């Protein structure tokens, strides 16, 4: 135990309590060995450090209030977005685009140079083993670090410039900006500001109608799916009656629309009569989201 029975004084603080005397441990010099005035960590120095901390905290809050954290549109695998990592990965990202760090040389890029750079950083004390501490007396270690820093600055700048250039060339605006603008417009118009994708499940109207069988027979099903929800590109036919009436649907069947080819002849070929197709269009026109 740390306490002696004969002592009323509990705290016996002599010198530096951090260092236990023992064999083999390399005792760092006591601070009294350094010239000048040392200062107690608690409370004196910690109070000063807290003042610096407060300044930093205010800085973060000012940044937070003036620049809200960006948020784009919900992730969508089919969107065309130029991928960009967070800024502190830009140098790596750009480096891996260099001809001798990508394609056939990707191993050199990911393991070779990157591995050696980060590995030697990790093991720096075992590579730079001299006793000299001042950086200008350690030319190899210091110049390698300066070189790396210059490379990081250069690559980061190149990556960002190229990204900006690419955005300008394709006429894209960062999605967080777009979202803010859209939200502001909607707010002004009194509309909901959310960009969350709203998916309502619309039921099939009159599922037992003979037209459902015709829908399958006429090969509509191969693009618009058995459940009529569509297959990615081809749209869902649930609720199609909200958008088109019977005549419009017949026109689409006869003439096609967008990516959809004219299907009238195909349906006839599949054994549907003119009356069947008329029934089918009539049934589709009944597909409204709300009854």
């Amino acid at each position, binding site marked *: 135990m740390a306490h002696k029975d004969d002592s009323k004084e509990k705290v016996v603080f002599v010198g530096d309590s951090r260092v236990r005397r023992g064999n083999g441990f390399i005792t760092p010099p006591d601070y009294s060995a350094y010239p000048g005035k040392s200062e107690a960590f608690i409370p004196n120095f910690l109070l000063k450090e807290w003042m610096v901390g407060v300044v930093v905290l205010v800085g973060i809050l000012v940044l937070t209030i003036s620049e809200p954290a960006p948020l*784009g549109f919900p*992730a969508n695998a089919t*969107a065309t977005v130029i991928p960009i990592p967070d800024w502190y990965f830009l140098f790596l990202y750009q480096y891996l685009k260099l001809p001798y760090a990508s394609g056939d040389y990707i191993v050199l890029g990911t*393991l070779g140079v990157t591995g050696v750079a980060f590995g030697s950083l990790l093991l720096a004390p075992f590579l730079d083993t001299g006793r000299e501490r001042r950086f200008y007396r350690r030319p190899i270690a210091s110049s390698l670090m300066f070189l790396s820093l210059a490379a990081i600055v250069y690559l980061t700048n190149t990556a960002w410039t190229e990204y900006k250039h690419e955005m300008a060339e394709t006429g894209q605006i960062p*999605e967080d900006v777009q979202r803010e603008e859209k939200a502001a417009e909607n707010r002004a118009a009194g509309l909901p500001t959310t960009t969350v994708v709203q998916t309502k499940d619309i039921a099939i109207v009159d599922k037992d109608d003979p037209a459902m069988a015709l829908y399958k027979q006429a090969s509509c099903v191969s693009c618009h799916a058995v459940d009529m929800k569509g297959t990615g590109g081809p749209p869902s036919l649930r609720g199609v009656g909200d958008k088109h009436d019977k005549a419009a649907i017949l026109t689409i069947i006869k003439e096609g629309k967008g990516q959809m080819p004219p299907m009238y002849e195909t349906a006839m070929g599949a054994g549907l009569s003119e009356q069947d197709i008329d029934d089918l269009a009539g049934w589709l026109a009944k597909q409204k989201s709300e009854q």
Partner: protein
Amino acid sequence: MFKNVYNWIDERLDITPIWRDVADHEVPEHVNPAHHFSAFVYCFGGLTFFITVIQILSGMFLTMYYVPDIINAYASVEYLQTKVAFGQIVRGMHHWGASLVIVMMFLHTMRVFFTGSYKAPREMNWVVGMLIFFVMLGLGLTGYLLPWDNKAYFATKVTLEIANSVPVMGPVLKELMQGGTIVGAETLTRFFALHVFFLPAVLLILLVGHFIMIRRQGISGPL
């Protein structure tokens, strides 16, 4: 009152030596900006820790609203950002803090490097510090996906492609992080688990090691 409570606990647990080890030490002149302004470079380690604490606290509040699944993740972030009182501030602190902690840690690393403070007997502390650096980068990488917007989604796709290009280990690593063959629901939950449980746990263990070592060895002397 306070003293009595302290003494009561101290009699039973003998906490005075622990308290001394943690707090009772002196700060030498050469690292004290009050004496030499240039010594402000010694502040960066402490500031890194300070921002790390901010990150942990703000992150804890964010998880009160965040839902880690692909249907609701974006909606919950948008709700937090636009509807919750001070949600924008808390998310903003976490967002900007994530960048600042990298900046501070980088400056701290450079200070240690250029003052040669990693030399004997402090080699192990440098290695632990670099591991902290890598864990922080991992936290940045995994946290980037969580809002589940297009920027997050496509950046993660690229990251996983890069991981995939590492020979031998790459495809395994990619599938492990991705949790399947596409960036999707499983990827999000894995990144969430990594960001909120695995990496912070590793980070805290490493930080404890980092601090114990600096207390044992003391700060390096003046140049």
